[in-house]
């Protein structure tokens, strides 16, 4: 039993209920993809391309097929011509005709043991014609650049992408008159910024297990952030009707965006269909770095102008994104980054334009923050730069420009709840902002601040709530809990609506056969978007239960009320009925079992044509904004240049914290991941080859690197949210690189143009400052 829950004290929402599956995880009983076995199961290994760009001329798999234990081999010739992709359908299940990045899967082997599969994969002979490779977006746009996707014009696109040559997509957003506005600015700052590729490094690498039944229907378990996106991607690439594929999920060991779109599910299904036997394929850590996806490197040119009082007048942002070999979520990342490029400020004149360019590298895609940390790194530093020029305190500068309650967002989304000002006040006070930190001898030390906003409403979702015979509750949403605790939060919303203890609610594992559609556990959307569906479905169950109770007690429904513990009572009386009695009647006597369902698609427009011009906007309907303010205290070693965050304060407006402890850990985890991005995480390529695909050379923060992060929850209820809740998944990461860069700027002077802020980068700035002084 949950020690923290005492039904006599209060309700489910707003309590730090421990995660429902904690016991399973701490006792090692949780099953992840690699823990699953099926009778007669085969193991798979993948052959990666040795070239970044080449035509595949021929395959010879005879030697591999003859190798011990090998049951089946697939190459591009064995998969249909279908293409998948969230925005632009440009990717096959397995390379066909061409390879577009080094390491791209070109063939796979299924064998009795993993060792046999790995040995056999090296016996596959592939003849290639190597082509010149495009290794940067700049090179991709050159007039004579080799073209990656010759058939780009024919690909299915879900928005006006403007694709041509190696240009995957372009987006242009304009509000006001930027060009005219510069003349009215007293201060203008301008700069170029670059950010690096960051790997997700979820604790669990990607994996899949597929099995075909006698009817030819496939069951697929995989590490994922959406069983429905898995189903869509597999079926699009392998040209299967969706009803032929059932997608399930075991426990998932973290995602951060890496497991949202397809990884190796399509090729695993292809192997299972080819061999007729269950096949499991789990990536090694190195493969997880090399063949899945990563955070986009950005090149950002930004210009910002303000009047003499520091009021922002104009902002221009131009981004160039490395897409990698396939579009994946890239058009969305770029469009979203541009939408967020003004930050949570009132800026009457804004223009944001971007180009996304195919290169012969690993695809880049969704990663916690979705382009927001990159543009915030530039934007928030320019706010500080203007403040310095006007001798304004960075907090005062921000306060003069905050997006106010009632203001809409750049381009058009409505903003209802807005706790930004409260977030700023909270971190100012908690961090004792006005007090300058003492630097130890040989160190520079300063505080830095950054603000951020992030959406949580988009796309479709549903929930089914059933009252079981004994009055307990079954909740089924199709939302994969990737470790962040959404099962718990959704159970709390369900329990709160029905006034039952959380322990009375069971949460079904996502299953495309039995769960209602859910676009995915991504974009900070589950608590808000799916939470709304849960509250709606539980509300429907309550409505039906009330109807039964009214008949059973022979009173009008209006005279009834719901009481704690799942009882329906006559107002002002002790007469009541437990859910068990009501559900028993429904199951056995009258009305039929109580099932409530609710589905929705977020339908508030992104773009208000009266307000702005938008070209190539990849997501027409998003909204509901969470807000954050983050302060960091950074210490820099004067002789090595090494920067460390000594303490951090992060205030986040989540509307209403359904489970405060789970919100805290999102803030803390987001902070640490953002700090890794700011200080040392970087995927490095040696020509076309990823040079550091291992935990030895790719540095993620350890607990010893993590400072004390003071998480502060601010609650400005969202009218449309379940119990007022908004998202919390990404917002804690967004402002971190910018806040650290601002602290570095305060300590050393100047602007940080390039991430990460390694000792190698900071040392010359210290030496320069010393020479100047």
């Amino acid at each position, binding site marked *: 039993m949950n020690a923290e829950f005492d039904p006599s004290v209060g309700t489910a929402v707003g309590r730090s209920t421990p995660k429902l599956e904690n016991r399973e995880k701490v006792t090692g009983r949780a099953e992840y993809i690699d823990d699953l076995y099926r009778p007669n199961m085969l193991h798979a290994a993948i052959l990666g391309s040795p070239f970044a760009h080449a035509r595949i001329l021929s395959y010879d798999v005879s030697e591999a097929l003859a190798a011990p234990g090998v049951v089946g081999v697939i190459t591009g010739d064995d998969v249909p011509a279908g293409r998948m992709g969230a925005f632009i359908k440009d990717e096959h299940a397995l390379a066909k005709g061409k390879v577009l990045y080094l390491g791209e899967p070109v063939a796979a082997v299924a064998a009795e043991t993993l060792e046999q599969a790995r040995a056999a994969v090296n016996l596959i002979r592939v003849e290639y014609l190597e082509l010149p490779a495009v290794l940067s977006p700049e090179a991709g746009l050159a007039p004579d650049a080799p073209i990656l996707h010759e058939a780009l014009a024919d690909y299915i696109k879900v928005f006006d992408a403007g694709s041509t040559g190696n240009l995957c997509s372009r987006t242009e957003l304009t509000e006001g008159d930027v060009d005219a506005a510069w003349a009215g600015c007293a201060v203008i700052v301008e700069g170029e910024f670059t950010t690096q590729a960051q790997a997700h490094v979820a604790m669990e690498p990607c994996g899949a297990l597929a099995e075909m039944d006698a009817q030819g229907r496939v069951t697929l378990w995989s590490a994922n952030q959406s069983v429905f996106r898995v189903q869509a991607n597999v079926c699009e690439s392998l040209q299967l009707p969706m009803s032929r594929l059932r997608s399930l999920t075991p426990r998932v060991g973290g995602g951060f965006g890496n497991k949202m779109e397809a990884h190796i599910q399509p090729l695993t299904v292809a192997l299972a269909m080819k061999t007729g036997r269950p096949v499991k394929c789990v990536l090694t850590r190195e493969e997880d770095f090399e063949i899945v996806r990563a955070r986009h490197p950005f090149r950002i040119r930004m210009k910002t102008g303000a009047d003499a009082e520091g009021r922002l007048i104009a902002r221009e942002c131009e981004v160039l994104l490395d897409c990698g070999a396939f579009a994946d979520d890239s058009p969305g990342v770029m469009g979203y980054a541009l939408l967020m490029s003004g930050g949570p400020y009132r800026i009457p004149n804004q223009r944001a334009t971007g180009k996304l360019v195919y290169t012969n590298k690993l695809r880049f895609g969704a990663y916690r923050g979705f382009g927001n940390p990159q543009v915030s790194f530039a934007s928030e530093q320019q706010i500080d730069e203007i403040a310095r020029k006007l001798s304004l305190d960075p907090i005062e500068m921000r306060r003069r420009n905050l997006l106010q309650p009632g203001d809409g967002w750049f381009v058009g989304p409505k903003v209802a709840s807005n706790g930004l000002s409260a977030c700023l006040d909270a971190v100012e006070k908690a961090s004792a902002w006005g007090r300058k930190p003492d630097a130890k001898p040989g160190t520079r030390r300063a505080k830095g601040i950054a603000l951020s906003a992030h959406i949580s409403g988009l796309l479709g979702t549903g929930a089914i709530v059933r009252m079981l015979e004994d009055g307990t509750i079954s909740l089924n949403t199709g939302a994969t809990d990737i470790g962040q605790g959404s099962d718990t939060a959704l159970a709390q919303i369900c329990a709160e609506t029905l006034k039952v203890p959380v322990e009375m609610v069971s949460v079904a594992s996502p299953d495309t056969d039995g769960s209602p559609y859910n676009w995915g556990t991504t974009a900070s959307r589950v608590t808000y978007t799916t939470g709304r569906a849960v509250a709606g479905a539980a509300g429907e169950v309550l409505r039906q239960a009330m109807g039964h109770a009214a008949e059973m007690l022979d009173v009008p429904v209006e005279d009834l009320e719901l009481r704690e513990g799942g009882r329906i009572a006559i107002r002002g009386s002790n007469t009541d009925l437990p859910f068990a009695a009501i559900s028993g009647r429904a199951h056995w006597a009258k009305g039929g079992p109580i099932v409530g369902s609710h589905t929705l698609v977020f339908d508030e427009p992104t773009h208000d044509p009266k307000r702005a011009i938008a070209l190539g906007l990849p997501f027409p309907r998003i909204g509901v904004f969470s807000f954050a303010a983050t302060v960091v205290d950074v210490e820099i070693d004067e*002789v*090595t240049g*090494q920067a*460390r965050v000594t303490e951090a304060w992060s205030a986040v407006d989540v509307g209403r914290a359904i489970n405060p402890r789970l919100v805290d850990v999102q803030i803390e985890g987001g902070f640490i991941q953002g700090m890794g991005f700011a*200080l*040392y995480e970087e995927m*490095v390529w*040696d020509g076309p080859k990823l*040079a*550091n695909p291992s935990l*030895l*050379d790719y*540095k993620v*923060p*350890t607990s*010893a*690197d993590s400072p004390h992060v003071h998480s502060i929850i601010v609650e400005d209820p969202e009218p449309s949210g379940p119990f007022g809740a908004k998202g919390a998944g990404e917002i804690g990461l967004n402002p971190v690189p910018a806040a650290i860069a601002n602290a570095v700027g305060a300590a050393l002077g100047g602007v940080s143009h390039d991430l990460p802020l*390694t*000792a*190698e980068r900071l*040392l010359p700035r210290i030496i320069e400052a010393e020479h100047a002084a």
Partner: protein
Amino acid sequence: MQYLAPTTLDDAVSMLAAQAGDCRVLAGGTDLLVRMRSGFAEPDAVMDIKRIGALREITTEDGGFRIGAAVSGAEMAENAALVAAWPGVVEAAGLIGSTQIQGRATMAGNLCNASPAADSVPAMVAAGAVARLASAAGTRDVAVEDIPAGPGKTNLKPGEFVASIFLPARPARSGDAYLRFIPRTEMDIAVVGCGVSLTLDAGGTCTAARVALGAVAPTVILVPEAAQAIIGTKLDDAALDALAAACSAAAKPIADKRGTVEFRTHVAGVLARRAATIAKTRAGEQA
């Protein structure tokens, strides 16, 4: 693949001598097993030396310490006398990997893995440590700095393995220290490492010193010019500047994904300065 598990040193040397193919010595296994698992090493045989009692002990000898080749970093840290005499060496060994790795990883293994960035090696070289090599022909003692031949290569002869490492007796007013630069705070590979060991006279003047650098050359290097820069001084700022300059001059690093030439050269001097200062403080505390 054959797994050998001798229980005496004599058995070990004869087993190793009898192996025609590639036989690797297994101590903690924190390098070897990882290499085997990832396919970089495919030995014909593995000889586990952890069952040889003599190689699992730390014994005193001529006022110094003999550390068996199968003694883990965690076991070293629990030996109070060793920690008191050679805090820098123990700390360096204690930087290898995580707490779990510490229960397995050995200094002899760290030495024979022959990484230029090995943490315990600059500390051992500064300490003047001597490795005892065993083979069917008997034993021979070799200075630790002469064991690595290049990245991943040693000067050990076929049939020979490191049985123990000897840290000599400490004169009064001696101290040592090891520092490394890593991008993070723990569980990382040195971008530069520096070990310093020194002895002061009653007046605080340095009478003897050894300085070693890691990750700035194909092997860990002893830097006699750096030692000369502080011998005869009280480690004042001018002496420390000279020490730092000598270390930066001796550093001949490569630029790779872990660091640039300029940065490594600069940091070699910075670390030497800091390590020497710590060693000096420790020597003073011993007085």
